[in-house]
């Protein structure tokens, strides 16, 4: 992802210097805004400040998971283990904290550590042992599911009834200057990932790896290390999402991570990141997440029964894809 030359003069120069990736990101943001416009048209108050805030908070959960997903998809991989890494981290966070503020920091670190460890294993086997990403992460999802269910005996263990530390619960639900803390956290993630991808040498290596791993290797990029790091980050972000969700709702539940698999992939791909790797940016994913969650909320606001929502959701995704997601004609 390259930056345009500092343009001295007109907007035309800027527009000309927009890479196709950036254009796509803008288009996706446009689509997301469109969702709100349509929503406001159908429902008074849909585009109100409080409604938008609520939608953005839900989008942040998807967005955090999708940060990791974006990174691995950029190198041509995928992470199908996010549902149960999220869930396991959530459970670990709650049970390690025992509901006490004094253990909050410890619990957060341990849960994030779990995400990193799982990501490390994923990355090592994918990069060094050439296990295909689809298979490895799919298997890991099962492994984490089994471990979580087994160790907590179906969430019936002694410490399983723990709540998240109250101070964190409170923090997540509060606002700073009118902006929910949760959104600030997401903003932090956005800034971090954007910084890494667009401004660091590591980001260049990521794109090089995604575009042409052999050429990148010959140019001195340690493709395997890059891959491992990205899977670790994916694990960490999934764990982070789990922690935030538990802080938000108070207690972990079984299966809480399931919706995030398809939603994170959808957000990433709608956001213009190619499933083959090498193209796209996290900002696009952010737009995709907001648009997607906005759409879901819109459908819920229509008071549609569940089956109707599902159908409309599917149709809407197809429409969005047909408008914005078509591959190049070969």
């Amino acid at each position, binding site marked *: 992802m390259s930056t345009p030359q500092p343009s001295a003069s007109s907007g035309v120069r800027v527009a000309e210097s927009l890479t196709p990736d950036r254009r796509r990101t803008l288009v996706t943001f446009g689509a997301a805004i469109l969702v709100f416009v349509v929503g406001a048209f159908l429902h008074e108050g849909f585009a109100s400040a409080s409604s938008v805030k609520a939608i953005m908070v839900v989008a942040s959960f998807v967005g955090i998971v999708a940060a990791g997903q974006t990174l691995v998809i950029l190198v041509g991989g995928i992470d199908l283990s996010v549902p149960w890494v999220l869930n396991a981290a959530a459970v670990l966070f709650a049970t390690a904290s025992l509901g006490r503020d004094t253990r909050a920091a410890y619990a957060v670190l341990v849960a994030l550590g779990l995400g990193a460890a799982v990501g490390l294993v994923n990355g090592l086997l994918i990069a060094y042992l050439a296990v295909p990403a689809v298979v490895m992460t799919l298997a890991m999802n099962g492994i984490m599911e089994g471990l979580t269910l087994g160790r907590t005996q179906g969430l019936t263990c002694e410490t399983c009834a723990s709540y998240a530390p109250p101070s964190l619960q409170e923090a997540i639900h509060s606002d700073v200057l009118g902006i929910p803390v949760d959104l600030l956290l997401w903003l932090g993630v956005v800034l971090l990932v954007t910084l890494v991808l667009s401004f660091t040498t590591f980001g*260049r290596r990521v794109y090089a790896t995604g575009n042409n791993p052999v050429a990148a290797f010959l140019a*001195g990029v340690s493709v395997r290390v890059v891959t491992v790091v990205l899977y670790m980050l994916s694990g960490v972000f999934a764990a982070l999402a789990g922690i935030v969700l538990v802080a938000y709702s108070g207690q972990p539940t079984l299966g809480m991570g399931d919706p995030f698999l398809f939603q994170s992939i959808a957000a990433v791909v709608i956001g213009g990141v190619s499933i083959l790797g090498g193209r796209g940016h996290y900002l696009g994913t952010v737009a995709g997440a907001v648009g997607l969650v906005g759409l879901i909320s819109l459908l819920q606001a229509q008071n549609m029964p569940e089956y109707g929502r599902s159908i409309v959701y599917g149709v809407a995704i197809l429409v969005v894809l047909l408008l914005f997601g078509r591959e190049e004609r070969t």
Partner: protein
Amino acid sequence: MNDETQDTTAAAIDAVGVSRSFGGVTALAEASLSARFGEVHALVGENGAGKSTLIKILGGTVKADSGGVRIAGEDVTASGPAAARRLGVGTVFQELTLFPWMTVAENLFVGREPRGPTQLIQRRKLARSAEDVLARFDVHGIDPRALAGSLALAQRQVVEITAAFMREPRILLLDEPTSALAENEVEWLFGLVRRLRDEGACILFTSHRWGEVASLADRITILRNGTNVATRPRFDEGEAVTLMTGRTIDRMYPDRPAVDEGAEVALRAQDLGGDGLHGVSFELRRGEILGVGGLAGQGQPELFLSLFGARKLSRGHVEISGERARLRSPADAIRRGLAIALVPEDRKTEGLMLPMSVKDNLTLAVLGRISRAGIVRRKREQSFVEEAIQRLQIRTRNPGVQAVGTLSGGNQQKVLIGRWLLAEPDVLLLFDITRGVDVGTKHDLYKLVVELAAQGKALLYYSSETEEIAQLCHRVLVMREGKIVSELSGPDADAEALVAAALREEAA
């Protein structure tokens, strides 16, 4: 400036005023081409002159923006590849159409497999038919049961060529058919071409190798900047070069600077062994251009990759400027002052990241130098990029944004080399950098190589063209089966001697 009017009933190909642009870049500007049945017609020109585009238009896979195309008298301007096929047009393009995970036999008969009464493919008949075809076309050493993807590039090209000839085309379009072939395979192809021509077909081919063009073609058309500049039965090589490039190149190969006898040994290889290497030792001094010759596939790529840390060595060691170097990865090699410009057999995969910008491609090997604490410093990056563009005269509109994939082949090559020049290496491993490159750019690259040697760099140079190695290098190591079988230098190292050394049995 076309030939005298030909008998139109014998016109196989008649393209008039054809223009085509790709995203603002003009590939063809009212080009014309006329080729007859019973003729071998060569199409030559620099990279970006429009040869491939014109051939693709003739084959129907690309449509012209304007102008008219007639094949065997029929207007096919608006038609696609199916119409061309129907009219008996066969093609062998640079992008091979082999299916890697299907066998050679399956590839040869795709779409026309022998079927039984149940309409299901008969495997055994397929295998036998394939053996028959290979025998009929005098192809040896290729197992019809082997997966196409497991063959070396030259073999794949042979299979693709065989498949095209098998269909007995009336018009055959060949785009750079000899780029990966060894000399005996080129002769084989020429035999097939001449036989087909004698049977009344029209063959149109493109090539960068003037020797081939001169010996095979009945008529030659020169393209420059998307237009037909001249069509004649014969051209003087110098005249042709001038017409192609628009400038005069007196001497293709610049003078070599003498090597200082006392110059430091920049690279010493001692008994290198590994996959495909069986004990290679040599010394390379500063200011020297050391050639690596021999037939293709005798361990040369393995040697280069091993020296660069991209392949594991099972024995032996490498010394750089006198110090032992453990090169476990290209990153190690780069740190020790090595650089490799490697043009892979299929050009696209191992070199550049095509969708990424020229800037990103150029700076990939020097990320450490354009950044601080991992963050890229834009101004430094800018100056590095400008330096490379200047030095190599890379033609790009907006290096920060323009994708390398949209550059012409020659410019892409320059970007690849530019990447390595920025790394300021002491030793450069150049592997087939002039493959598929047009005459003008080749000359520029030779000048660059000689200049680098004059600056004191040590260069290891491999090319698939023997003439090039003979003219450019101070010494040449001839490889065979992973070993060095002879070393030729000075006046002894002419093209003939090199070929002889490559074919001879191992020196006593």
